[in-house]
């Protein structure tokens, strides 16, 4: 960290780009719009999973499959998944830009963030939409009660 900081309000070292899409601006807006939606999605998520009934101690496979058998919760969870990972990944990108001092370090760290975000979005979306609430050959006491009616 030997590079000196330029004096405040000195001209840009590189002239700002004048044409093309201003991605930084859309990223800035995305953080705010997704943030507002995430407040609703995450507070609802925490309320239903941790406050209703016996909260954390009631969580198990039967509880989750009861929720994911319902399209309402499928879409709730998928929306939360995409919005939160992209919001968090973009936020982490800001931190890398602020704290990683070399070009190589920034490249490696941002690639790692991008890879984590893409892999988890694909994994999470597949889990929610290919999920089987009543998998065959499993002990009935681990499954939601509605499986017995099948």
């Amino acid at each position, binding site marked *: 960290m030997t590079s000196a900081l330029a004096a405040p309000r000195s001209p840009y070292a590189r002239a700002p780009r004048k044409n093309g899409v201003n991605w930084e601006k859309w990223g800035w807006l995305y953080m*705010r719009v997704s*943030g*507002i939606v*995430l*407040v609703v999605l*995450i*507070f609802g998520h*925490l309320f239903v999973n*941790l*406050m209703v009934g*016996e*909260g*954390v*101690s*009631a*969580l*198990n*496979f*039967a509880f*989750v*499959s009861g929720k*994911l058998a319902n399209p309402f919760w499928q879409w709730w969870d998928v929306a939360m*998944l995409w919005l*939160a*990972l992209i919001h*968090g*990944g973009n*936020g*982490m990108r800001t*931190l890398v830009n602020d704290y990683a001092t070399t070009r190589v370090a920034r490249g490696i760290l941002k690639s790692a963030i991008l890879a*984590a975000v893409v892999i*988890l979005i694909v*994994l*999470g979306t*597949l*889990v929610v939409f*290919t*999920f089987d609430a009543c*998998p065959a050959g*499993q*002990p009935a006491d*681990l*499954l939601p009660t509605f499986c017995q009616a099948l």
Partner: protein
Amino acid sequence: MWSWVLHRITGVAIFFFLLVHILDTALVRVSPEAYNAVISQYQTPIMGLGEVALVGAIVFHAFNGLRIIAIDFWNAKYQRVLFYVVIGLWVVTMLAFVPRHLINVFSH
């Protein structure tokens, strides 16, 4: 400035939790036993206290995020007052959450 530091730290902490949380939830696709084995780790007293810290971080980040949005789109004049509003809402939310959560953790 402290609101900014806290917003960064809570943002990073939540991000790393989210990575783990998607992986543990993905176990519902493996088998009921696998999912139950891992989720029972979230039901221990130590993790129960960790969940209090996690919810505290999320609630702060959420309310302070709304404060940032209000400052950017509305008026920066009230930023200091709004910070005390964030703290107040955080205390009220945690008072609603923590006792109930600890009863759920420690009575099972």
